[in-house]
């Protein structure tokens, strides 16, 4: 398993509604995880490890900086079946 997968296992994503501009760049880049109505919303509880890289890239690219990634609890995650 790659390093990206390992890190991705505990990935949680939040969007700050006061910062989000609703421009929809995240939905464009990563529609599996982000959905934008008036502001962005995260569709999933945990990010599928396969999407970890794209989610990090999307968070970096967010023009308003509204997307935050929480990786601190990855150690507690159970191994993948």
């Amino acid at each position, binding site marked *: 398993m790659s390093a990206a997968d390992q890190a991705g296992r505990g990935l949680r994503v939040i969007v700050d509604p006061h910062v989000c501009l609703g421009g*929809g760049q995240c*939905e464009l880049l990563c529609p599996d995880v982000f959905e934008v109505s008036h502001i962005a919303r995260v569709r999933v509880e945990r990010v599928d490890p396969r999407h970890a890289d794209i989610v990090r890239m999307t968070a970096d690219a967010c023009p*308003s900086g509204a997307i935050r990634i929480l990786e601190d609890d990855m150690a507690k995650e159970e191994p993948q079946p």
Partner: protein
Amino acid sequence: MMNDFCFDPLDPVVWQNPWPYFARGRDEFPAYRHEDTLARSVSVFRHADAVAILKDWETFSSSIPADMNMNEGGLGELGSLMVVDPPEHTRLRNHVRGAFSLASVKSYAATVERLADEILDELLERGTFDLTADYAGQLTARTILTILGLPASDWRRMREWTVRGAANVTRSHFVREAEPEADRSVEAIFSEMAAYLDDFVGQADALAEGSLLRSLVQAAPGDRLSPFELRALTALTLLAGNETTTTLIAGAVLTLEQRPDQARALRAEPELAASAVEETLRFRPPVPGIPRRATRSLTLHGVEIAKDDNIVVWLASANRDPRVFSEPDRFDIRRGVSPQTISFGNGVHTCLGMPLARLEGRIGLERLYRRTRAIELLEPNPPLVIAPGVYAFERLPVRVTPV
């Protein structure tokens, strides 16, 4: 190293081929102090610097220095959101955020498609037309008028204000010497637009239900804009809402038709229109550079920047920075959306109309390429509007062969 690098963005020659200037700027003069026609300004060319500056609105402000005297009838009035920082900016932006959000914009798709087809019905019959004014300009002006709830039939008037405004408004941000003529022109546009808008604001009940202008006028009392803010915000929405998107569509067609293999690819697969829009945004951004103002003195790449100096962030250069993009000078409509492209800016001032511009660009291109067999450029080097803040065409005459 001898400083033989001279980059004057007010020189029309530069814009015939700005890319070697940007390449040299990125490599040798990442912060370049202008010594000639510009106001006290420093240009930045690299992607990393551009992003860092645009994200830091506290150090690099969008507000206009008080001594530029632009509050009465000038840029302050037409600039609205563009020339204030948080918290004012946040408050103003929240009034229009919903109307331009991705969800709202998706609901405009059918309208934009209908407009594009209606316009093309007439233009394809004519065969020869100006792709900037007659197609892209008409489509984008009618769209933004419709969203605001104003008569789409006023699009020619809107386009005229836009064309006059685009050159003059951005020039006044860059030039060293005051240009009274440009200032007067901006004043005239604002007073004409204000008079036009006041008629509609006065009878908001007559505006279409759910339209943006009606909802701005009829907002709850505690949530209402002042009459000045209302006019300024509406004027900005109207002007910004069609100038840049017009350039996007026209720039896409020019860039495609200069590369027959790319034009063929889009015609064979019109679904590539969305991706072609992304690549055009990167390759030839409608707004090549945007100004900021230093709120304190600082040093950037060895260049000293004083408080109140202008910083010009060259989006067009950042988008072709090889430190970020592979083969940046190759135009490839299959490249798709790139998270690094910063044609809509970055940070709190990121273009409000981003989802709408993408939608209009995609539909505008898709309908045009679906309904034509060939597009012939009648002027291979169409004349440009020379103003650092816009990369617009004076005209883009074409002859089309309908399907």
